[in-house]
């Protein structure tokens, strides 16, 4: 089953309330996906010469201070960091390759959840309420956020198997459904140089989009290509540094509802996740059409193209 939710603010004055507006959306979808949950929040941008790395450890008493001190000593440069429960966010100008290499060599048990200028991915096993409380979701600020409540079908219930998935800077994807050609596609993407952390089908969809964007396609073009190349059931919600997109498979096997006002665009598997948003009674509420790409970028709707 699974539930997916997303909230993209057009009105910057709501940014301090992003977590507070989003938490009820995620929790409303808990009975569609009670086994794990996660979200990707965009905000608190670092300068263009820096990157944010979100790390998580399964070990509650992990010595983050020790890790950061050692990283600072070995890599030098500017480094800032903060801790949020079982995760830390490190902001540094040391570059993605060097940080990845250092982590692989010095902290192999730590999971790298996301890399980007804006994105932070936080996720875990357990009821969505536990995950939201663990990371103090309701107090978070930002411009947009995408979340997932998981009822696993294609791979194990684990932190790594929880959504959102990311495979490139500031890009994330949540998925309701199951892909049938993910093994073959994974092999093809590996030949293109993509790397995978899990056996999960949704990670393949994220990697596919990263690859298409790397090849120079726009988000809209990449999603139109996805309609041709991905086989299976899917409703996707995708986040980029300044964009937000929704795509359903051409048969429309999985549900989705969109709501838009002057202040925000919201997406959910079911309307009841949207019922608490401010101004929802006056919002335009509709079901995204199958096989059609919906993209908002820089607070504007960038496309609503027919993909089939």
């Amino acid at each position: 089953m699974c539930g997916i939710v997303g909230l993209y603010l057009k009105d910057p004055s709501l940014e301090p309330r992003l977590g507070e507006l989003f938490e009820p959306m995620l929790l409303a979808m808990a009975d569609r996906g009670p086994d794990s949950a996660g979200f990707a929040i965009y905000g608190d941008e670092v300068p263009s010469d820096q990157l944010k790395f979100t790390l998580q450890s399964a070990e509650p008493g992990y010595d983050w201070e020790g890790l950061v001190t050692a990283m600072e000593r070995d890599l030098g440069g500017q480094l800032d960091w903060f801790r949020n429960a079982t995760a830390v966010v490190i902001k540094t100008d040391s570059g993605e390759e060097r940080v990845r290499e250092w982590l692989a060599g010095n902290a192999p048990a730590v999971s790298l959840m996301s890399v980007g200028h804006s994105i932070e991915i936080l996720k875990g096993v357990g009821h969505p309420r536990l995950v939201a409380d663990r990371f103090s979701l309701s107090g978070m600020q930002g411009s947009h956020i995408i979340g997932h409540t998981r009822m696993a079908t294609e791979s194990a219930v684990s932190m790594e198997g929880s959504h959102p998935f990311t495979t490139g800077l500031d890009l994330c994807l949540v998925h309701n459904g199951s892909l049938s050609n993910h093994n073959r596609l994974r092999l093809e993407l590996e030949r293109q140089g993509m790397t995978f952390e899990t056996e999960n089908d949704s990670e393949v969809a994220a990697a596919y989009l990263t690859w298409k964007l790397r090849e120079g396609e726009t988000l809209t073009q990449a999603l139109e290509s996805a309609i041709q190349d991905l086989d299976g059931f899917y409703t996707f919600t995708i986040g980029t540094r300044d964009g937000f997109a929704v795509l359903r498979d051409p048969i429309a096997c999985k549900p989705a509802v969109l709501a838009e006002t002057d202040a925000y665009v919201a997406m959910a598997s079911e309307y009841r996740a949207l019922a608490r948003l401010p101004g929802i009674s006056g919002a335009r509420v509709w079901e995204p059409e199958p096989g059609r790409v919906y993209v908002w970028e820089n607070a504007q709707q960038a496309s609503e193209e027919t993909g089939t």
Partner: protein
Amino acid sequence: MKKLSLAEHSVRELNSALHDPQAMDGGTEWYVSDPDGRHALACGLNDELQVTIDGHAGYYCAGMNQHATVVVNGTVGVGVAENMMSGLVRVRGNASQSAGATGHGGLLVIEGNASARCGISMKGIDIVVGGDVGHMSAFMGQAGRLVVCGDAGEAFGDSIYEARLYVRGQVESLGADCIEKPMRDEHREELRGLLAHAGMDFDPSEFRRYGSARELYNFHVDNAGIEQGDSHE
């Protein structure tokens, strides 16, 4: 009018109250507020009640309806009025997939758009949609009438048996064994009645009619009545 807020009462309390043999006592009108997309609202009604749901409803709203009139001032999720037997269900906004699925009777009116598989396996229900319908609408329709005042999506009327389909706008494509058929006076008359009953102000002469070509396997007499392993050949 009896009022019930779903912010204060559970869905089960609402449905139990509507099923109560005393539901008709002291007036037949019910007003339900704060639906907030909850599922299975006003299901299985069996009396001549008039129920207004003020807001958006979730899945299977007014399912299995008999005799009652249910009006939703908002959108509805999957399977509104599924398996309706009689009565009237009116949706003032849009409907999600499988609206009126397997309905045997009564009238379902959707003033906005209905998405995929509207009227799937319809068995006698009448459905009038003010806007468009999505792909595979009236799939395996067996009886009843589907009226679309806007456009119809791909594979319209796929594998249809005997339901009658009327479309005012464009049909993206017809499904297997579904063909356009001539509009005769009797059809314009039937359509006029349906539109009037639904409160839609369109001219019946603007519509085209579609139905079964009766070419699929089950329509051939040679295939009738022969069980597997039958030795009477």
